[in-house]
């Protein structure tokens, strides 16, 4: 459907405003629908626990770790519900 058709159906003529609303609608759709998935891979560094979530993330579907002793398969890992007992470690 073209932007013009959407404007005609909604009975409005402001193209720029309608385009902005369409973008908002697409954001609302992507936060509720699982239509497309993206994958981000990062290298794990020894003694580093924090890794950035991709900036365009709406919701995380799964987190996996490479099992180097099982043909480099990525295996899904579990999410911790509670904060671990030791929350931070002194780094050298």
């Amino acid at each position: 459907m073209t932007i013009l058709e959407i404007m005609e159906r909604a009975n409005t003529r402001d193209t720029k405003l309608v385009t902005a609303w369409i973008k908002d609608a697409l954001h609302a759709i992507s936060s509720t629908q699982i239509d497309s998935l993206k994958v981000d891979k990062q290298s794990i560094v020894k003694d580093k626990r924090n890794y950035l979530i991709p900036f365009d993330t709406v919701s995380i579907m799964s987190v996996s770790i490479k099992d180097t002793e099982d043909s480099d398969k990525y295996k899904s890992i579990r999410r911790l519900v509670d904060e671990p007992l030791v929350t931070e470690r002194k780094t050298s």
Partner: protein
Amino acid sequence: MSYDVDQQWFWRKHGKEIHLYRLRKGRSNIPDNKGRLSFDDNELIYPDENITDGLRIEYTPLDLTSSGKTFVDKDATSNAQSSLTAVTGVDIKESTHVNVNRMLSLAIVDYVKSMVSEKNGDIQMKEYYMREFYKKLADNQSNNKRIFVSHSNPLTAVR
């Protein structure tokens, strides 16, 4: 070398970051260097090795199309995705197509109607169209699922 990762690794969301932990299993029947026995030596530790491309995050992106083609030059419902060209920025015109299926296009129409109603100060109509918008999203999602329900005839049923 990472092994049994599904058993040993855990993650936790922390703001814009993911925190990774590995479970180190210990033995509670061996005293430590101070002669003390611990009830449970299992502990969560920071990653203890380097793994190239070791972390894989699968997520739903803000952009509905993973190829980045949100606005395109041709009708997405009648052309192959590979033949579509992305339209961005100032090139977006009235003739530009939104790269979603028919049901989601109709949902977008409801969203725009809702915003128009809000602009005109008609909150009741705004809420009505927002309900229609979410109803169409739900329809679109449920259209992808086929659920089969089977009923067996009871023994006493007339045959």
